[in-house]
C-alpha cells in the first residue's frame, strides 16, 4: 500500500480524500493556490505545497507544478478528485511518465469515455441502448437545424468534451438554435478548452439515474447500486439519492449489467460512473461515463457501507477487490443535498466571501462533507460547492424527514447559500412521492414564493429579532474600529452587496 498520496484538488473533495488517506494510515499531501492559503484541505494534510496564483489554470490545472510537488514530497500516487485534472489524459499520462500512480483509470479509458462520440460508438458495439442523435460534432447552425429537424424537437445541444451538467442546453424550437449554439460553444470553450458540440433527441420526462462501478486490475468488476440524480437545476445535480424511488431489482440488474458492458468496452479500471436517462416506461439510455469519483458518491457509501475512495486507493495499489457482486446490498435510503455558496433569492448567483458563522447539523444518520470552516473566506475562483449534506435512514421517507431536520439545524452566516431552497424542495408533494423528472426544479422555481407561511408568534419573533439586529446595526456615534461590534461590521460588509 502507498505510504503517501498527493491530492491534486481542493475544497470538500480534497478533504474527503484526505480523510480516506488518514483512515487508511496513509500520509496525505495537499496542494494549494494563493486563494487557498490555510484552506481546510491544507490544514488537514501532513504536507502542503503552493502551486501558484488563484485562477485554476495557473494552479490546480498546472500539471508540471503539481508533479513537482509530488516529486518533492515523495508521494507514490496522486488522487485527482473530480473536476480539474481528474479526466485529463495528458495528466494521467504525465503521472505515469513521472513514475507516480494516477488513482483512476488508464489514459486510454479516460480518452475513450471523455469523447462523447467515441464513447457512444463503444457503447453501441456492446449493445448498450442510447438516446438517438449525432455522434459526431456538428459544424454549424445549419447542420444543427437539419439534424434537430430529423430527430424532432425538443433536442439537446451538448458539448462533446462536457460533463457535470456544463455545456448543455435544451432547445424546444428551431428559432432557439443559433443563440443556444453560440452560448454552448462559448461555455464549452471556456470550461473544457474545446468548442465541439453535438445534438441529441430530448427524452421527455426523463430521470437521470447513474450506476456506480468498481473494477480492479485483476479483471474483477462490480456495480454498486444506482444513484437517482434527477433533481437538477440547469443540468446541475442538486439532490441525489440511493436507491432511486423508481428502482426495482430487475431494472437495477439490467442497468448494472449495461454499466458493466461499458466497463468492458472501455477496459475500465478503478471507480467510475455510468450515467443513464430513464424514461417513464423504464427504458434506459446510456448518456456517458464519468471516469472519476462523483460528487454524489456518499449516498452509495451510506447505503452499502463501501468506502469508494478507499476502494479507489486499494485498486490503484494493485490490490484485488474483496467485494463480490452478491455481497453488495442496499440497506435503507440515503439522500444528499449539495450546499452551494449561491443566492437563490438572486438568481442563484455565486456568493463568495467570509463565513462568519457556521453551525453544522449532527446526530444520528448524518454526514456533512464540508470543505470550509467558520472564518474561512470562500474564494471567487472556484466552484461554489461548500458542503455535501447526506442523511441516511431505514426508509426514503425517514431519510427525507431527517434531512429536513438537518437542514433546519444548518446555518451559514456571512454568505448566501441554497439551504432555504432545499428546505422548500424537500416539502414539495411530488418530491416526497418520488414523482419528478429533470425539469422538476425549473418548473417549481417559476411559482416559488418569496416568503413561507409561518405562525403569528413566529412572525412576530422574526420581527423582534430583525429589529434587535437593526438597532445593533445602526451607525454608531463613534466610528473607531475598536468599538464596532461584530454585528455592525458584518452588517456593513453585507450592506455592500446589492
Amino acid at each position, binding site marked *: 500500500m502507498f505510504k503517501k498520496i498527493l491530492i491534486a484538488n481542493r475544497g470538500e473533495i480534497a478533504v474527503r480524500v484526505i480523510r480516506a488517506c488518514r483512515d487508511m494510515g496513509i500520509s496525505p499531501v495537499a496542494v494549494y493556490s494563493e486563494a487557498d492559503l490555510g484552506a481546510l484541505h491544507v490544514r488537514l494534510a501532513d504536507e502542503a505545497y503552493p502551486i501558484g496564483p488563484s485562477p485554476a489554470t495557473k494552479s490546480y490545472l498546472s500539471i508540471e507544478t503539481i508533479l513537482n510537488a509530488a516529486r518533492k514530497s515523495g508521494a507514490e500516487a496522486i488522487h485527482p478528485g473530480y473536476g480539474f485534472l481528474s479526466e485529463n489524459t495528458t495528466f494521467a499520462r504525465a503521472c505515469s511518465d513521472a513514475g507516480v500512480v494516477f488513482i483512476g483509470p488508464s489514459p486510454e479509458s479516460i480518452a475513450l469515455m471523455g469523447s462523447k462520440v467515441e464513447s457512444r460508438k463503444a457503447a453501441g458495439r456492446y449493445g448498450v441502448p442510447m438516446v438517438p442523435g449525432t455522434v459526431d460534432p456538428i459544424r454549424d447552425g445549419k447542420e444543427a437545424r437539419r439534424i434537430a429537424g430529423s430527430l424532432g424537437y425538443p433536442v439537446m445541444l451538448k458539448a462533446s468534451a462536457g460533463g457535470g451538467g456544463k455545456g448543455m442546453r435544451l432547445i424546444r424550437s428551431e428559432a432557439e438554435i443559433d443563440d443556444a449554439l453560440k452560448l454552448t460553444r462559448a461555455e464549452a470553450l471556456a470550461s473544457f478548452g474545446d468548442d465541439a458540440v453535438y445534438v441529441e433527441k430530448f427524452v421527455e420526462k426523463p430521470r437521470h439515474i447513474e450506476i456506480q462501478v468498481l473494477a480492479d486490475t485483476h479483471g474483477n468488476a462490480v456495480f454498486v447500486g444506482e444513484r437517482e440524480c434527477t433533481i437538477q437545476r440547469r443540468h446541475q445535480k442538486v439532490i441525489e439519492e440511493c436507491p432511486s424511488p423508481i428502482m426495482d431489482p430487475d431494472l437495477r440488474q439490467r442497468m448494472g449489467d449495461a454499466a458493466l458492458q461499458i466497463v468492458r468496452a472501455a477496459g475500465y479500471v478503478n471507480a467510475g460512473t455510468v450515467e443513464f436517462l430513464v424514461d417513464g416506461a423504464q427504458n434506459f439510455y446510456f448518456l456517458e461515463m464519468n471516469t472519476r469519483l462523483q460528487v454524489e458518491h456518499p449516498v452509495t457509501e451510506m447505503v452499502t457501507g463501501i468506502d469508494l475512495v478507499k476502494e479507489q486507493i486499494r485498486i490503484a495499489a494493485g490490490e484485488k477487490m474483496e467485494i463480490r457482486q452478491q455481497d453488495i446490498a442496499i440497506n435503507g435510503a440515503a439522500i444528499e443535498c449539495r450546499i452551494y455558496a449561491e443566492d437563490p433569492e438572486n438568481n442563484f448567483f455565486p456568493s463568495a466571501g467570509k463565513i462568519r458563522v457556521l453551525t453544522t447539523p449532527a446526530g444520528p444518520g448524518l454526514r456533512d462533507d464540508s470543505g470550509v470552516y467558520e472564518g474561512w473566506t470562500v474564494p471567487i475562483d472556484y466552484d461554489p460547492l461548500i458542503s455535501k449534506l447526506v442523511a441516511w435512514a431505514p426508509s426514503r421517507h425517514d431519510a427525507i424527514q431527517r434531512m429536513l431536520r438537518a437542514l433546519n439545524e444548518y446555518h451559514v452566516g456571512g454568505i448566501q447559500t441554497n439551504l432555504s431552497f432545499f428546505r422548500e424542495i424537500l416539502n414539495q408533494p411530488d418530491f416526497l412521492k418520488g414523482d419528478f423528472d429533470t425539469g422538476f426544479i425549473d418548473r417549481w422555481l417559476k411559482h416559488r414564493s418569496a416568503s413561507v407561511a409561518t405562525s403569528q408568534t*413566529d412572525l412576530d419573533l422574526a420581527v423582534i429579532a430583525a429589529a434587535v439586529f437593526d438597532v445593533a446595526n445602526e451607525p454608531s456615534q463613534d466610528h473607531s474600529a475598536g468599538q464596532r461590534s461584530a454585528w455592525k461590521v458584518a452588517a456593513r460588509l453585507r450592506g455592500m452587496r446589492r
Partner: protein
Amino acid sequence: MKHRTAVIAGKRLETAWIETETTIEATVDGRSYRLEKRRVSEGILWLCSDGTSVDAFVTPRENGYEVIIRGKRTFIEFEGSRRRLLRHTGAQEGAVSVRAPMPGKIVRVLQTEGAQIEAHQGIVVMEAMKMQNEIKAPRGGRIAKLNVATGDAVNLGDLIAQVE
C-alpha cells in the same frame, strides 16, 4: 424603549421593546411578548416566549433582513432604517439599479440602452466562479442606462444597468 416599523410583504407592523442581558419585553402590533433571550452567535438569536422556543437566524439582505425561524424565511424591511427593500414583485415605481452581485466578467450583453424589457428578462451574461449566469431585470420597464460592455471586468456592486 426602542421601536421600529417593520414592513413584511407590504404590510406594516409596529414594534417596540426593552432589552436586558437575558430578556426582551416587546410588543408587535399590540401583541405583548415577555422573552428570554441569548445572543448565541453573530446573527443567531435564541428567543423563548411563554413556551415557544426559536433560534432566529438573521441575515442582512437587500436593504432589509431575511429571518429564518424553524427553517422558514421571512423578509423584513424597516421604515426609516438605512436598509430598504430593493427587490419588489415587479410592480414597483421609480428607477432600479442593477448591480454586479460579485466580481466577474461580462461575457455577453443581451439588451441595448432604451430597450423595453419584462421582469426577469436577462440584461447581460456574466461569468463568475466558473459559471455563466444571466443578470436579470428585477422589474419590467425601459433600460435607461446600460453601463457595461462585453469583456468588461466588474466588481461587486458595480452598476450594470438602470431600469425605469
